[in-house]
């Protein structure tokens, strides 16, 4: 694949949140890239920094360090006009919540809002056509569009949120656990709706999830996050057939020991000492895990961050 196909690149992104007592390192030197039309998934447990990464990629949060590059241009250096264009090209679907859309607005107006903000439509008629087209794609009826958020079910509301995100026909859609808190049937409907829309419009997707089954079903490439770092990435198929990082394999094999042994771990992505974040829960942990593990390339587009796979090629 050639490099010009890469739409969005996050390079060594870090994010710190400062509270009065301490600094929370939510994200540490995470590098992500997404190509045209690609389906990428980010998996990890809560507190692993995946939401922070998603918000940085959507540029809702600014990274403390690192660069975010959209079509060869650093976002920090973009002027207002360029940033406005970026805002139409990269869209974000937030985690499902009861305030996913303005409770006072009709669904129709909420979905039309991006068009109105960017002055993308000339007339009401054109606006209506665009909205009906998108609504049809997401199985929302005219009756749904007339209602307010409180009169919709969770699944319907989340589909309306997705409609609002894709009405501008973006190039990248970042969906942050779009199905959490919804029941399994609704979950698969939402995922199906996103993938269906993706086929029609042709955007790339970055799906953040803690459900491996979803990640497996709808992604080509996978990033596994733990403790604010990307511990392993590669093609989804490769990772599922042969997980390298102990954390990844514990996720895939549902290793209870590794998943539950949490007493030593600091809460919410805070790791004061250097070294591997996973060592407290890792059965392979040794003395050298107290120093930061190397990132080791394992064949085709595959990287793992662990001491198990030998010394770094270059320090």
């Amino acid at each position, binding site marked *: 694949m050639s490099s010009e196909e890469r739409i969005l690149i996050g390079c060594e992104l870090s994010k710190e949140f400062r509270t009065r007592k301490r600094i929370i390192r939510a994200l540490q030197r995470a590098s992500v890239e997404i190509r045209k039309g690609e389906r990428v998934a980010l998996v990890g447990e809560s507190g692993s920094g995946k939401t922070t990464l998603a918000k940085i990629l959507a540029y*809702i949060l600014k990274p403390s360090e690192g660069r975010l590059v959209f079509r060869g241009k650093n976002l920090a250096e973009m002027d207002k006009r360029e940033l406005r264009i970026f805002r139409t090209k990269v869209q974000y679907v937030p985690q499902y919540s009861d305030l996913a*859309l*303005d409770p006072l607005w009709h669904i129709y107006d909420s979905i039309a809002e991006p068009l109105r*903000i960017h002055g993308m439509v000339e007339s009401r008629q054109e606006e209506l056509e665009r909205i009906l087209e998108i609504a049809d794609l997401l199985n929302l009826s005219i009756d749904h569009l007339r209602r307010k958020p409180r009169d919709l079910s*969770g699944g319907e509301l989340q589909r309306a949120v997705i409609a609002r995100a894709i009405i501008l026909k973006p190039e990248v859609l970042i969906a942050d656990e779009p199905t959490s808190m919804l029941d399994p049937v609704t979950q698969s409907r939402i995922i199906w709706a996103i993938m269906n829309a993706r086929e029609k419009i042709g955007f790339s997707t970055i799906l953040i999830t803690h459900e491996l089954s979803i990640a497996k079903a709808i992604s080509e490439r996978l990033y596994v996050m733990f403790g604010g770092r990307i511990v392993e990435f590669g093609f989804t198929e490769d990772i599922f057939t042969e997980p390298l990082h102990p954390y990844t394999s514990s996720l895939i094999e549902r290793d209870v020991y590794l998943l539950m042994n949490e007493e030593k771990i600091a809460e919410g992505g805070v790791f004061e000492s250097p070294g591997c974040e996973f060592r407290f829960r890792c059965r392979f942990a040794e003395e050298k895990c107290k120093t930061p593990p190397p990132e080791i390339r394992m064949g085709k587009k595959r990287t793992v961050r662990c001491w198990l796979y030998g010394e770094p090629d270059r320090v």
Partner: protein
Amino acid sequence: MGTSRTEILGFLLLSSVFLMLIFSFLPEEYFGKKSQSPYLPPSPSNPLGTNDIGEDVLKNLLIGSRASLTIGILSALVATGIGTLIGVISGFFGGRIDEFCRSLTDLFLVIPGLPMMIVLAAYLGPSYFNVILVIGLLWWPATARIVRARAVQIANSAFVEGLIAIGAGRGYIVIKHILPNVYGVALSRFVLTVPSAIILEAGLSFIGLGDPRNPSWGTALHFALTRGALLHGAWWTFIPPGLCIAITSLAFLLIGFGIEKRYRESVKSMERSL
């Protein structure tokens, strides 16, 4: 959710107060004549008797409703306006701005309101405008706090994140989304601030810091006290204005509680239904 019984009572009381306001614009000849002797007890010609300078108490009472209501409503409007503005700015922008606004709110909360108001009113001199300004400038912190809480909730909500990702500007988000969403709390705060303002105005007038050209119910109480109505046993000069203040305040309180309750229920049902 229908209108509750307390609200209906509130509206009835309020409409009777507004009836007084309308009657106050009746021509002179409908009121009792000015009498030569002070403190005449109630009689057919002066239904509520006369005061210290022989004026008809009923006429003064009706005219007093103008100042009391205007000052009460306008200063509540000023206070709610300031409180909403500070609350929204504080809640939406967060960070340093939020810290500054919160300190300012706390500062104004610990200022003892009434003494400060007396000092300011005495310093600025008695006038309609000054009374409104003084009450408005000192009575906003509670509103600011409540509005801020709601604004924070909205500002951190998923839909505002979505809006930022869409490329909506901050001003746009505040005007189109935050303000309409705090309107309910702000409205109930406004209605609940009116009685405080009316009572404060009465207090200021009572100690002689009101606008003498626009006598209010507080002014009537002031003259009742200073001109010896109590010594004369002229209860008709001070009980009616006192009652009027109490009834008007009660009316606004009842309506305000109703609005507040309904707003809370609507927010709750919004959150529960999802």
